[in-house]
């Protein structure tokens, strides 16, 4: 396998609710290779989102390491963490909540470009270019997040995420809040962007059908642990873990 973009090894995170410790992520290891799309599936509350927050260092793990593009980012902070963030971006479930309600979509994208050190004179031009790249007219730059549809807002969020040309895009239920036809469009957009920019994906979802159509490898998570992983076709056709079997059989067939 080529050199991995992301290596997570033995990651653990325990929350305290009251005085009772709740292990949300327990000794999780996974890798995402260069230009690879990896899926992470599991039911609600299994620790997927906590894992996503640990990988993006929005939260800090109790144990284990996160290695991004060969650099251990587990203990980074301040300016060096901000530099490392150029290589990783996250797409959130609720597209409108991922934009500051006060700012226009264009301003939010310009802020991202500015933070990445993009020259000020070219920011407006680049914003229009990014919006076109995700299939939005450049006039969307002047819209507020509340003025556009969920799908359009998610496209803008993707435009902002790819502004710094990241190596890895973590999608945390990125299409779950959208209706099915828009879902397919967004997935197609991500696939195209992944190819043109050589991005890798860690696709987190409870939707097995969606993930298996998009990802080459699959991790199945339950109760904070990885219970099964392997090539997508392999996991779907010959699941070894009883929970995976249950998950697969719960997908409704389209007839």
């Amino acid at each position, binding site marked *: 396998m080529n050199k991995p973009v992301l290596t997570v090894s033995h990651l653990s995170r325990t929350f305290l609710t009251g005085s009772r410790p709740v292990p949300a992520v327990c000794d999780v290891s996974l890798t995402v290779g260069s230009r690879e799309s990896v899926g992470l599936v599991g039911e609600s509350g299994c620790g997927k989102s906590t894992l996503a927050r640990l990988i*993006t260092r*929005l939260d800090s793990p109790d144990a284990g390491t996160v290695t991004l593009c060969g650099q251990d980012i587990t203990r980074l902070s301040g300016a060096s963490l*901000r*530099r490392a*963030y*150029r290589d*990783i*971006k*996250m797409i*959130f479930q*609720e597209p*409108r*909540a*991922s*934009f*500051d*309600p*006060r700012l226009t979509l264009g301003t*939010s994208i310009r*802020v*991202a470009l500015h*933070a*990445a050190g993009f020259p000020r004179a070219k920011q407006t031009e680049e914003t229009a270019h990014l919006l076109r790249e995700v299939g939005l007219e450049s006039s969307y730059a002047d819209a507020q*997040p*509340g003025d556009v549809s969920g799908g359009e807002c998610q496209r803008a*969020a993707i435009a*902002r995420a790819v502004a*710094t040309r990241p190596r890895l895009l973590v999608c945390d239920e990125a299409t779950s809040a959208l209706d099915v036809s828009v879902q397919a469009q967004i997935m197609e957009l991500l696939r195209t962007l992944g190819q043109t920019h050589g991005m890798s994906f860690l696709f987190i979802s409870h939707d097995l059908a969606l993930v298996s159509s998009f990802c080459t490898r699959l991790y199945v998570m339950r109760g904070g642990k990885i219970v099964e992983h392997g090539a997508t076709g392999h996991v779907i056709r010959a699941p070894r873990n009883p929970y995976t079997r249950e998950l697969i059989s719960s997908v409704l067939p389209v007839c």
Partner: protein
Amino acid sequence: MRTANRAAKLRLAVLLVLVAVLCIFCLAAPSLLPNDPSQAHLLAAKQPPSTRYPFGTDWLGRCVCSRVLAGASTSVFSALTIVGLTLAVGCAVGIVCGYFGGVVDTVLMRVVDIFLAFPGMVLALAVAGMLGPGLKNAVLALAATGWPQYARLTRSYVLSLRQENFIHAARLNGQSPASILFLHIFPNAVRPVLVTASLSIGGTILNLAGLSFLGLGALPPTAEWGSMLADGRGLMQQAPWLIFFPGAAIFLTSILFNLLGDSVRDVLDPLDSQRKQYK
């Protein structure tokens, strides 16, 4: 939805114009006085309203109308100063506590708890009592006891904002803490706090009048509405105009600022903008 919003904005515009008129009036009041507000005419004491003295005269024969007008700027601008000071200090403390957390948060919030454990006016009385009477001290006392509630409020808004995905996205953008604070946290947290502040202007005018009424505000012969009420209440039966006019001035001004606060809330209301967001 849109039309209701426009009506609210129109109402806010009208009230802002009225407040601007009030402020201009307060500034211009010294040149509108029919008589010298401090000049005593013992021969003309306790006269009912007339053309010479539109609001009558007090027990020293001073023109009540002139004193109400001269007191306008004292009352209104002192109240605005108090609200401005509490807002600035409270917001700063709340944002620092909410955003950085840790030991600073714990220490400052315990101080806030201590302040909030006392009824505001009692604490203000104690502080004003320690500082001694005088308008400046009354303003300081009310400001010193008013900021903790704003600190609490701002902190809670900042704490909930910190969990928002757009703040996470900003961190992943690689934005510096200062950029996140001034671009995203501060403008979003200050809006609801601003609403509370504009609602409290009316109450502050009353509190200041209250302190002056108890003799801890403006010192004689400075005209101030609260102290005019206090001085006139002994003569309520013989010369009711002594308390009617300053009372009416306090009433009208605080009503105006309360309406302004309501209107600011209608336009800037955080819940309303949420509803718009998820429409």
